[in-house]
């Protein structure tokens, strides 16, 4: 731990569920979690933001489609484009895609069921704001739980994601939802915005998670904030 704590905001939308878990993960990683409310017009000087999992607005219409229009998203989009680290987990990933901060979309799991399981992932890229504490190709296990986690995009987009090294995580040991090319998570071009379906914030304590493999997300970003 270093002197100044990194202030990491966690947005609560109506229907967010994993916001308290994301705050706990930030805390356990040594950061200072800051609660952000969907109606906030500014980001309260946080250094990074997590859009947590859940069912914002009940996932009605499409997952993340309504949350995208929340007041807090305006400053968030602006600062994300300016380089602020943003992590979208599950529903947060869906919000990022709906806001076009990340390409593609998430669709109904191919087997049509909600699935909750411990999922193995391969870290495909370690120079993003959220993955620098992992090794290239490292396999981690974190919980996965969603009903609409199938990542889709047109072939051209998929090809360019691959070519630019923007596929950050891939499913290993079985594709749980029909995601194209086993994609579990992606980043924007600059690597400061990352979205993924599985839940690193549920793998930060041996007592409650399958592993503590998820902590690296939060330690990565905190290191980056210190050195930045």
């Amino acid at each position: 731990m270093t002197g100044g704590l990194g202030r990491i905001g966690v947005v609560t939308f109506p229907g967010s569920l994993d916001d308290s878990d994301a705050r706990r993960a930030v805390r356990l990683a040594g950061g200072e979690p800051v609660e952000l409310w969907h109606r906030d017009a500014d980001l309260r000087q946080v250094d990074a933001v997590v859009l947590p999992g859940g069912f914002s607005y009940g996932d009605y219409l499409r997952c993340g489609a309504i949350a995208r229009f929340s007041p807090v998203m305006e400053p968030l989009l602006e600062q994300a484009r300016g380089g602020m680290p943003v992590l979208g987990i599950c529903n947060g990933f869906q919000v990022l895609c709906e806001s076009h901060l990340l390409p593609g979309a998430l669709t109904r799991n191919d087997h049509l069921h909600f699935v909750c399981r411990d999922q193995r992932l391969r870290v495909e890229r370690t120079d993003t704001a959220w993955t620098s504490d992992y090794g290239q190709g490292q396999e981690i296990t974190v919980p996965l739980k969603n009903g609409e986690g199938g990542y889709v995009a047109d072939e051209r987009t998929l090809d360019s994601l691959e070519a630019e090294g923007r596929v950050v995580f891939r499913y290993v040991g079985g594709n749980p939802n029909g995601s194209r090319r086993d994609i579990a998570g992606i980043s924007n071009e600059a690597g400061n915005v990352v979205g993924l379906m599985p839940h690193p914030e549920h793998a930060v304590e041996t007592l409650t998670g399958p592993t503590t493999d998820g902590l690296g997300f939060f330690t990565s970003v905190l290191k980056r904030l210190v050195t930045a």
Partner: protein
Amino acid sequence: MTPSTQSEPRTAPAPRTALDTVKHAAGTPGADQPWAELGLKQDEYERIREILGRRPTGAELAMYSVMWSEHCSYKSSKVHLKQFGEKAPGQPENTAMLVGIGENAGVVDIGQDYAVTFKVESHNHPSYVEPYQGAATGIGGIVRDILAMGARPVAVMDPLRFGAADHPDTRRVLPGVVAGIGGYGNCLGLPNIGGEVVFDDCYQGNPLVNALCVGVMKHEDIHLAQASGTGNKVILYGARTGGDGIGGVSVLASETFEEEGPAKRPAVQVGDPFQEKLLIECTLEIFREKLVAGIQDLGGAGLSCATSELASAGSGGMRVELDTVPLRDSSLSPEEILMSESQERMCAVVEPGKVDRFLEICEKWDVIATVIGEVTEGERLEIYWHGEQIVDVPPRTVAHEGPVYHRPYERPSWQDALQADDAAALPRPGTGEELRAATLALLSSPNQAAKSWITDQYDRYVLGNTVLAQPEDGGMIRVDEETGLGVALATDGNGRYAKLDPYAGAQLALAESYRNVAATGARPLAVTDCLNFGSPEDPSAMWQFAEACRGLADACRELGTPVTGGNVSLYNQTGDTAIHPTPVVGVLGVIDDVSRRTPVAFAEQGQLLYLLGDTREELGGSAWSQVAHGHLGGLPPAVDLDRERLLAEILIAASRDGMIDAAHDLSDGGLIQALAESCLKGGNGARVVVPDGLSPFVFLFSESQGRALVAVPRSEEVRFNDMCGARGLPVARIGVVDGDEIEIQGQFGVSLRELREAHEGTLPALFAGDAERAGA
């Protein structure tokens, strides 16, 4: 901007003609009233007239009819339920029960200033009619009960019973029920930490969907459902009121399907878990600011229930302006508004000075809130419709002084023959090969197979406090992150045992649930129960019910675990055929440090396997007799509550002192079932020796109670043996965790791979790949 919560109320239209006011009712004593259609009996109707000194208005009749239904009034079960409070009152020497039977849910002290509230309820009939929504709203309803006590709901469980696994209608009902429980619970952000899935022909036309919720609060946060303080405002908040499930309480829960026929399907309620999530957060914020004097959730019987129960429990009366209720459908009549079972609504009593802040918090959460009335000085519940009085009743007569029946009951004529049909006479596997085949048949049978196809559809991680979740003996939730204080919960109920002997069956349900909680390392504290039975008008079913209540109450006294609340579901039958009597018992336990929990998995090779307790030849009602012979007869395993208590003490002490690394209680399927589950979960095999004097078959398949299988690290063997010896619990070292197969020495071996395929393949093969209903 978000829509304002208090403006734009779509309230009711001006009165139409022929409003049945109190005045009108007084002047037209001879008017014809549809009391029979509403499910009231002649004498009940007469009693209402007597109470009121006139004929009831339409609105009053609606209220009495729903509140006096079996579902709301417990008129057939009350006289039997009384024993729970009498035999095991829960104070002071036992559990510190802070709130007992009679409130929305019981509350138990777990120390460190924390209190826990938990309750199980049924949503059986609605789930048969519309599996997805029926099950979903079952979760929604029980969660609101827990919320209304002042607690934050922290987990749910779902004890389920279905018809035959391969019956086409089960393929309609099960996937819908599971999707509904998951759809609602997942969206609410409540981890599902356990439950049951049982298949039996007897549930074919009448599946059981029970739902349990547990909540946590500080002592000072306990809230009660009562309206006190003259001038206090009555606020209805949450969803708008629509035409959902009107009369659902009496029609859905109290009549059999046969009488209704499939054509006259009642309106079902549709749940909105998002709305409920907002309701939870909003209500908890309201509690934090201490803004409510009394609170009640709206469930069965809707506003009729909430207003009459609040007023009945309080000190004054209540006056409600029914036309201020925000509606989804402006054509609803006052009777319908009173009976509507629209989901996701709550009713609070608030001091006038706190109303503004209350409404502000509702607005913050986009929750519609409306002052619909106030607490009055008198002792009447008065309801007005556009200024005209349509209800004027003593609220106690609606909510708490409904009819009480002493229904006749009688031991069924077939009971003796059933018990005489001893399972000991059934042909048994003899050779190692036959035992191996019986093992695979058992573990792949739908009842004994892995349930992960179902439970993987439930979020068990959300909230980040799940220490144990299915498949484990009990679910465990961390309550305090600093101290590690936690609670464990299990639900059990074996309808086959209860059919053979309902008194013992209810005790066995409690014993198993108690044992499961102890196996996790937690100390069992208190009980909730859902009593699912046939028609109380059938003396045989009523006898089963009476026996089960007596058995459960006696066992609660002996184990020192009071019943804190629960639910009765009667009329579970198809035509004249009742389901097996199915008492589902939930036990709550407390553990001081959740890092001491004991899981079921055999995680380390080389650890020693000990079988605790006595194994006798007990096969009546066993899983083996069902799988191998489709047989149900004889007597269930013997109940020995002293033994259960001793076993629990050993399991808890061993967990606290780090003497065991894994424990699995033995129940249906016997030793072989527990052994296979612990091996599969841990990914390690075992070598097991049959003790002298026991036939391998009895050793593996008998269902004697009061037993558990534990894995002891070698370094702890002496200490563990000494402890068991000192306390007088028989233990036998039966083997060791080893290799990647289960080997019963001298009999057979089976690889974990083959076992896993058998155990885990069954449910997916039955249910995966089905398009339930299109697009559900």
